[in-house]
């Protein structure tokens, strides 16, 4: 009896969600295209309680992380949520040092290479966290007569300084 009522209300909530999607007119093609796919998972009690109340919410989040789709993971990833990379502040970690060049990884496809600053120069060690202002995620350019872009396999960022922890701030 309990399963029968769950499946009825689940189908009702699914119908509501599909109607809501149709009303929105499928403006965000990827998001809407995925909502029927994610709703096809077996009915959950949590999903039902939210289904009837949150009609205007986007694709319903599936509770278990195993079933999360690639599209929803991508949509909620920091890289996508960040938007254009120009002038965004990020935290990076130094993973390699060659004398004055610091190779910093901030979570993008490529790392960036920055010069060791004069202020607190010796504090920049392998593994230290730094603050960066991004300029570009990948340095590419189409040269004259070329079929494809030439890529430098590097990102571009301005080094702002070390990540100051709360202890250091309290001491100051």
């Amino acid at each position: 009896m309990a399963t029968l009522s769950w499946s009825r209300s689940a189908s009702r909530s699914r119908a509501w969600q599909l109607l809501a999607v149709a009303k929105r007119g499928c403006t965000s093609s990827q998001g809407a295209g995925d909502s029927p796919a994610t709703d096809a998972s077996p009915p959950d009690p949590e999903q039902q309680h939210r289904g009837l109340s949150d009609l205007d919410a986007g694709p319903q989040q599936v509770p278990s992380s195993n079933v999360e789709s690639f599209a929803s993971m991508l949509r909620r990833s920091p890289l996508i949520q960040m938007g254009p990379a120009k002038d965004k502040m990020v935290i990076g970690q130094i993973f390699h040092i060659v004398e004055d060049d610091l190779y910093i990884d901030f979570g993008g496809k490529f790392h960036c290479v920055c010069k060791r600053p004069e202020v607190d120069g010796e504090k920049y060690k392998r593994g230290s966290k730094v603050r960066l202002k991004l300029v570009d995620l990948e340095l590419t350019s189409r040269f004259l007569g070329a079929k494809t872009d030439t890529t430098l396999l590097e990102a571009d960022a301005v080094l702002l300084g070390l990540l100051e922890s709360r202890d250091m701030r309290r001491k100051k």
Partner: protein
Amino acid sequence: MAAARLLQAAVPRFSRCRSLGKADPRTSLLSGQLYGTLIAPEGNEAVDPNVINDKLITEALKNPDFFNVKELISLKNLFDARVHLGHKIGCRHRFMVPYIFGCRLDQDIINLDQTMEHLQLALNFTAHVAYRKGIILFVSRNRQFSHLVENTARDCGEYAHTRYWHGGLLTNAHVHYGDGIRLPDLLIFLSTMNNAFEPHVAIRDAAKMHIPTVGVVDTNCNPSIITYPIPGNDDSPSAMQLYCRLFKMTITRAKNKRKQMEVLYRLQDKADSS
């Protein structure tokens, strides 16, 4: 049989990995299976290796995922290792368009659902080649990860070539190394481009020599003649570490499985004959 690839006792010049000490008669059976001309004679004591080999191979082919490689890969792992990140739109290769999920602010995003399927096929194939005692050669011209690739090859008992590829390495092997050289049975490309952003010569050469290839193809690579392409990022350290770990695990798993099955069948044969 002139075309038979006998095992050379000397250390192959492909890498400084393990040395092949003894000439194993069972390894020549691999080429026999490929050409399909070797027929095992009946009722002979010396035939046992042939018969066991046939049984082991048919046993492994009964299940589509005999080595259970599906459990090694998960979407979350691939995502966290940044496998979905591609190059900018200007670097895109025409033939990679089917594998691309979309383009976000000029950066291509690779479709990880497709990557999962391709990765599973490639790992399954690698496992079967390792199970049949094939020689696997890791190739990568990406200098940032050459040490990682060489270590991976050494750890799973296979070979790596991460240096400049001289022209006739595969196609002119008889001249370089003398007669009776055994070529690799599988080439795994951790990066299909060379340092001039052109396709690695070994892809074309392996196709010429009928050697299957597995390759990680990024959005600027040509996946055409690679037997088992894996669309994915080949520039981030996390992604490369993931691939190396996966290949190492599948190859060791396949080799262990082979040892297990041999012991099992030998015991069975002894029980039947006694």
